[in-house]
């Protein structure tokens, strides 16, 4: 688990897939922690990387940028990156930035893992 104040990111293995579960607001002060966790997870070359945002109540453009960067890196490695568990407020931010069409988004972590 990576920690930054109250910002924790749990990492779980599900077979060959990795699930990251950040917990707390993702803003400019925390996006670097998320970026490190995503890079580390991709470095392990999982068959699938799932980012479960169910416990993220707030995300700003620095969080979006971090996920876009990770998605690009994942595509280069041919690793599917799937988001899930978006809260209403976080989904609204994705929609404002029109990124809900860029990412693969599942409703639940289990659906995201199964693909």
């Amino acid at each position, binding site marked *: 688990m990576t920690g930054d104040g109250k910002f924790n990111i749990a990492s779980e293995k599900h077979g060959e897939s990795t699930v990251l579960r950040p917990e707390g607001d993702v*803003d400019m*002060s925390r996006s670097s922690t998320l970026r490190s966790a995503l890079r580390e997870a991709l470095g392990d070359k999982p068959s699938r990387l799932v980012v479960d945002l169910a416990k993220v109540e707030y995300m700003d453009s620095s969080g979006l940028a971090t996920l876009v960067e990770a998605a690009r890196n994942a595509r280069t490695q041919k690793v599917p990156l799937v988001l899930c568990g978006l809260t209403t*407020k976080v989904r609204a*931010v994705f929609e404002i930035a029109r990124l809900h069409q*860029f990412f693969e988004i599942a409703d639940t972590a289990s659906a995201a893992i199964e693909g």
Partner: protein
Amino acid sequence: MADTKPHVYLELRSDPVYLSGARQLIASVAQRLGFDEMACSQIALAVDEALCNIIRHGYDRATDRPIWLSVWPGRKDGQDPGMLVVIEDEARQIDPTIIRGRELDDVRPGGLGVHIIKEVMDEVEYEAREPAGMRLTLYKRLVQKDDSQDADQAGASPAGSADQGRVSNDG
């Protein structure tokens, strides 16, 4: 002007660690002014993005520079219920006409802050401030219940600025 003094005034350092506190303050004030939960979140998001841009681009991530945040419950002349937020800094001045959001079709990290601010607020104005720095004025209109039907019928996006704050019963 009937009421030019801000009702809420906050000076904070340009340290990202204080973004959360600023967001909570703005969202809390917006709620008490009658905005619904989504509108409160959007106003706080716009202020957060503005503060991030000042810290990142204006102050080159220096964490010890001042930022001033002022809030009025509507326009300064007392007209039009809503929330007026003015954010000022001492960062380097830039031509306000070149401040614009990037094309969203070009998906890449960064550059979304200005787009988000303009999307969620009804009025956004950048200007140079005397004697130094920039001033950003943000205004979000509070839609009364009688107006809300019109907004709905206009085909409001769930995330966009057309999704105005509504007067709520628990505000």
